């Protein structure tokens, strides 16, 4: 079914694609436009379009031709999408993918295509760049653990939570998010007695809801899109009111904008994220205004996905500008530019890469607030500057703790 769908859409798309002329630079975009993450994926595309529009639609006289292909959050769909972009559309630069395990798959794939540069969209699995990185895979942004910087300490020290249960989707990105939360929370003296890993796209969470221990102070929820909406709805319907701590895509604009009955329960919930809806730095205000103008039907404010796909595409534009649009050397000069690229990112900090081509980022601890018009938004409580991939720990110690998994880290 899935493959049929991909095959059919691939045929339809390639029939419609215009043959690329010599002055065109084809940039492939991989995002999720189906299933639970479709709203997020749609917003990622908006980010890419904004970055291309910022550059005026062309770089050094070369038209930018965007080819968008949908994946479905599974690694094999991302690989199929990338192969299609490279082999059929001749893309030398790919921006994407969206989801954690897709990123790991594309990092592995990038080794087979050394001439193609893959710039991560918003996928946030840790090992995409930490262990065994690939020289032509870039991430202008953080991983899931970096996105939680500051939250564990805030939950323990400021909110006074001692015992927290975890409900998260069962794949690499939530593992990484849980690590980011737990490494601080456990170090501060908190405990996590139980973790519930649920499949992506699960609709009925009621049995998980009733299995959560009654004596926890809060629940850390790392679910995305419709999964988050389903879980929170059913949690509220069952009549529980334990406070929520949100993962980066749980407390995202896509979830806050959905019309659901759990809204009131979320007000005051803290979360970690690289993207805040009402951050008052002038760069962000300008970015959000440009977004609102270009996409009146978009979300209330740019989501993580618009933000990160924007940064990825922006890096590609700046890199292309520096080499005059010339990728004839297999992109070597382009990648050399990317390695040392620094630019002001939409939140105002300076984006730069570590030696594994992973971003060193600013991260926010936020809380959910009700805005004047009654909709939900987020407010920054705290900015954590210069979060690197090892969360400030020594690289050797960090690597020695082993790769993240269902059972690692653990502090029951």
């Amino acid at each position: 079914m899935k493959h049929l769908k991909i095959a059919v859409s691939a045929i339809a798309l390639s029939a419609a694609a215009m043959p690329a002329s010599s002055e065109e630079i084809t940039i492939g975009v991989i995002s999720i436009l189906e299933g639970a993450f479709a709203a997020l994926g749609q917003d990622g595309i908006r980010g890419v379009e904004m970055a291309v529009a910022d550059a005026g639609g062309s770089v050094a006289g070369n038209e930018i031709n965007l080819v968008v292909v949908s994946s479905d959050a599974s690694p094999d769909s991302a690989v199929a999408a990338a192969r299609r972009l490279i082999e059929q559309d001749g893309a030398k630069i790919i921006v994407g993918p969206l989801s954690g395990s897709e990123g790991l798959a594309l990092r592995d794939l990038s080794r087979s295509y050394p001439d193609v540069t893959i710039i991560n969209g918003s996928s946030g699995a840790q090992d995409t760049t930490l262990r065994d990185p690939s020289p032509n895979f870039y991430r202008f942004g953080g991983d899931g653990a970096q996105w939680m910087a500051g939250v564990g300490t805030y939950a323990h020290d400021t909110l006074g939570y001692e015992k927290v249960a975890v409900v998260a989707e069962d794949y690499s990105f939530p593992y990484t998010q849980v690590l980011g939360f737990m490494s601080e929370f456990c170090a501060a003296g908190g405990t996590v007695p139980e973790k519930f890993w649920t499949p992506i796209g699960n609709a009925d969470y009621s049995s998980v809801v009733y299995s959560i221990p009654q004596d926890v102070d809060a629940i850390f929820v790392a679910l995305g899109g419709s999964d988050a909406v389903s879980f929170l709805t059913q949690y509220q319907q069952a009549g529980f009111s334990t406070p929520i701590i949100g993962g980066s895509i749980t407390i995202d604009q896509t979830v806050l904008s959905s019309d659901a009955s759990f809204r009131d329960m979320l007000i005051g919930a803290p979360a970690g994220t690289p993207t805040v809806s009402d951050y008052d730095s002038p760069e962000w205000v300008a970015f959000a205004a440009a977004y609102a103008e270009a996409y009146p039907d978009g979300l209330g404010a740019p989501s993580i996905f618009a933000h990160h796909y924007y940064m990825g595409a922006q890096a590609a534009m700046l890199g292309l500008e520096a080499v005059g649009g010339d990728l004839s050397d297999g992109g070597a000069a382009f990648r050399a530019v990317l390695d040392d690229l620094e630019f002001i990112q939409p939140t105002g900090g300076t984006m730069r890469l570590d030696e594994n081509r992973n971003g060193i980022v600013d991260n926010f601890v936020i809380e959910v607030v009700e805005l004047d018009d009654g909709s939900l938004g987020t407010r920054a409580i705290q900015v954590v500057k210069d979060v690197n991939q090892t969360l400030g720990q020594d690289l050797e110690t960090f690597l020695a703790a082993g790769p993240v998994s269902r059972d690692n880290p653990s502090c029951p």
Partner: protein
Amino acid sequence: MTLFFVVTLNGLTLAALYFLAASGFSLIFGLMRTVNMAHGALLLLGGYVGWSVADATGLWALGVLAGGLAAALAGAMVQIGVLGWMQGDELRQTLASIAISIILADLMLWIWGGNTYQVRTPDWLSGGVRLEMLGIGYAKVRISLMIFALVVGVALWLFIQKTRIGAVIRAGVDDQQMLRALGYPINKIFILVFAMGGMLAGMAGVIAGSALSIAPGTDLQFLLSSLVVVIVGGMGSVGGAALGALLIGLAEQYGLAYAPTYAAVVTFVIMVFVLAVRPQGLLGRSEK
């Protein structure tokens, strides 16, 4: 122990939803031997239309009705416009219905976007009731879901078993050519059955949107569960759909509660087991 009862209750309510979704699917297959792969899309369409109507009018019941009618209409159109032209060629019909499902899914993404919708339930359905025996609160909407499925199940059974049209449909299941020879307008009956299947799916969509939530992808999720339910229960019988839904709903919830990591496996283990031991399904009749 409380957890066990709550999980059982969850399993029963999920089974009720699966039954609503799968009964129409099973009905269509039973009469026409068409595996309608667009069934999930009809369900999601019903859910979206129901949400829009409930949101605009504030009347939840009207939303359920509108969702059912919209999907019934769409189902009838699918049969009149596409599948009716290739009657008797099941493989072509199945492939065409896959195409319809993809087209509908994209059209719905275009109209309603990728957001997750939750159909707001009226006050008398919101919140929970206290179950004194177990000492916990339980969501009213899920209890009503169970009652609703029971009512629909009994009504469907009465319709099929006790009415004249029901008798014609049953006769069609057994021997289509004889029915045709006796002069019954079989094409009209096909359209009626398709509309009924769509109606059930559409209502299930609105109810799924009330108890859970609907978003792009819900279509495939329910198509898959409907397939599993009818494979386990047996194609073409209301009782089979009920039994299959019960088994799968309970298995999924026990799995989620006691072994969340492997929850997805449990249902398919049941399916594999049934296929190995009784390939026509638990209550299905073997093909002659």
